[in-house]
């Protein structure tokens, strides 16, 4: 079992490299343009009542890997389906480059797509599955069989050509699905949770591979996931969606360092960011935050790694050490997780080492690093710290254009 898995890991890696390099050659040989994707005031509602997407505008930059990230039901798959043309918006416009594709269906948009469950046609053989897009494009039979065999060899399923999908392992099915997505020389590649059916270790390897290969090929890629860690590792930009609205659309690190709102702060990062009612601990921050924040702040959020021993030699947010009570500590390999009672709430800190700790139930002095501490107001927007200027310009949603 484990040997087979190892084999799968290795060959999966190899095949993905090949697959994306092939995609690269398609890009250049077929003269497909690498395009950006632009949404203008796009809405989608079912029965004109329930808004799935509410008037969203953004530009997915060309030649980059963009993640759509959010909890289930946030509208990320809907957004992907709007890009693919499987869904039509009830309002707004969609552009591929300069071309308005709003009214065009999936057929005309020529996107490549890999689904989470592979969605291979169960009644067709592997070769027929790969050749199906070419058959629909009326490629001559001899040509498409030749190309189909090439693609199959590329993804290492050449020995399985006459098998039906249900005779293949999950990994093999995914290879066939990717071969099928490549068969039509797509201008945009859409990946709908492509890694979620793989085991954890393989998933980590594959995401690194996808990222490296995407850099080499430069094809505009949209990757949907609900796993924030996966998104942070793979993406050039991340669009965080919740309840049909864009919460924030920026680079992974900026998303982590400067979350615009409480939702993003809580969604990004593991362990989940500590939140304490600001009123409980307000006095500790009196010297740090402006008066307006002092009165408007409702929630303070603190990243686990920003809670450090009072003896920590680096910069501290507050002049005096803060005090809490040590509840419990656990060591997991290189991580030490400390539960700390502060402001009437139990918070998790992982900036401590075992030698920094006392006994459970005893008071403990700690300090906060200047980074990773945020104050949010009543409606969940970040009111402190103010946006920190960095040399990386954040990606702004495109200007709203009124017709």
């Amino acid at each position, binding site marked *: 079992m484990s040997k087979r898995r190892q084999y799968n890991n290795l060959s999966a890696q190899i095949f993905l490299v090949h697959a994306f390099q092939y995609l690269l050659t398609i890009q250049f040989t077929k003269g497909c343009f690498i395009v950006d994707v632009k949404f203008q005031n796009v809405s989608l509602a079912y029965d004109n009542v329930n808004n799935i997407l509410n008037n969203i505008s953004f530009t997915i930059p060309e030649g980059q890997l963009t993640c759509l990230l959010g909890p289930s039901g946030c509208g990320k798959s809907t957004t992907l389906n709007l890009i693919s043309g499987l869904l039509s918006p009830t309002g707004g416009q969609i552009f591929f480059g300069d071309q308005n594709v709003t009214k065009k269906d999936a057929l005309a948009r020529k996107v*490549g797509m890999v689904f989470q469950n592979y969605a291979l046609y169960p*009644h067709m053989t592997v070769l027929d599955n790969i050749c*199906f897009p070419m058959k*629909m494009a009326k490629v001559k039979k001899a040509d498409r069989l030749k190309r189909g065999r090439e693609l199959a060899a590329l993804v290492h399923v050449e020995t399985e050509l006459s098998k039906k999908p249900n005779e293949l392992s999950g990994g093999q099915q995914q290879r066939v699905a990717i071969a099928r997505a490549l068969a039509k020389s797509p201008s945009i590649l859409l990946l709908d949770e492509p890694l979620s059916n793989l085991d954890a270790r393989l998933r980590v390897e594959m995401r690194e591979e996808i990222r490296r290969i995407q850099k080499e090929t430069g094809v505009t890629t949209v990757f949907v996931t609900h796993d924030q860690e996966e998104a942070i590792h793979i993406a050039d930009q991340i669009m965080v969606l919740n309840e049909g609205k864009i919460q924030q659309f920026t680079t992974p690190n900026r998303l982590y360092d400067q979350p615009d709102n409480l939702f993003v702060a809580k969604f990004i990062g593991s362990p989940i960011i500590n939140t304490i009612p600001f009123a409980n601990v307000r006095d500790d921050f009196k010297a740090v935050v402006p008066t307006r924040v002092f009165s408007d702040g409702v929630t303070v959020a603190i990243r686990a790694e920003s809670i450090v021993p009072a003896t920590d030699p680096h910069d501290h947010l507050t002049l005096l050490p803060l005090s809490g009570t040590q509840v419990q500590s656990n060591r997991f390999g290189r991580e030490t997780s400390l539960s700390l009672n502060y402001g009437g709430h139990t918070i998790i800190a992982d900036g401590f080492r075992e030698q920094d700790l006392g006994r459970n139930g005893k008071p403990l002095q700690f300090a906060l690093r200047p980074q990773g501490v945020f104050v949010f107001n009543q409606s969940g927007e970040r009111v402190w710290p103010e946006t920190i200027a960095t040399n990386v310009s954040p990606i702004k949603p495109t200007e709203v254009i009124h017709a």
Partner: protein
Amino acid sequence: MIKQHPTIKSTLIAFAYLAPMLIITLVFNIYPIFKSFAMSFYTKYDFFTDKVSALGWANYKFIFSDPDFYLSVRNTLIFVLGVVPFSVLLSLIIALLLHRVRFLAGLFKTAYFLPFVTSTVAISLVWQWIYNDQYGLLNAFLSHFGVHPIDWLNDPHWAMPALIIMTIWKGLGFNIILFLVGLSNIDKRYDQVAQIDGANAWQRFIHVTLPLLSPMTFLVSVTSVISGFKVFDEIFVLFGGSPGPGKSTLTIVFYLYQKFYSEWKYGIAAASGVVLFLLILVVTIIQFWYSRKHVHYA
């Protein structure tokens, strides 16, 4: 799963659970099957004392020399060939439409299903009126196209078409429901993938929907063929207890019924039943053989 070795006790317990259904099936299905098979060889038989005096092939010799029996086989085959293809095709088309219709979908489904749950007697009464040569709805409709009134129920040429039309209509609802179940069991992802792969609506139907629906199409055809071979009550009620004008709708089951209830020839009735059984068996085997190549089980 718990793996248990079967013991005598566990086997007996299993049989106890199976017993109620098993007894009913044995008494009302299995026993009559063997009994009627045996009965087809009774050449001298007293029904009241259940005493068999002679056995032999005479019953089979009789039916295979009876022109009425040949007529009934011929009529049955015409009926099956007339009903099944149209019924399957029509119900597939209507199911495809209903599958897309969102507006009042429930009402439409109910409307199409009603004939199936309505008693055949009531249906036949309505159709007798529809088929009436002077006052009938069908002739009134056809007269708009310049068709002269047809005496559907009394003209030997038109009795069989009349029967076929009514049977198709009556069976439509059940087949539509089966097809709708089949259609909703097809993951709509396949349709989306096919769209992405560049297939238009017709290509998606031919290359994706139809192959994935094939197990249900097969089920519908097999059950339609079997129930077609067994047709009786529609004829009995539509033609007022007669096998149609000039025996034009005399089917095998009707032949069997006449021999059994009207002429008290149990042996001959049983023999024709055995022939019907073999006929259905052969046709079903052919269908299964065909399905091996053309039905895709996902």
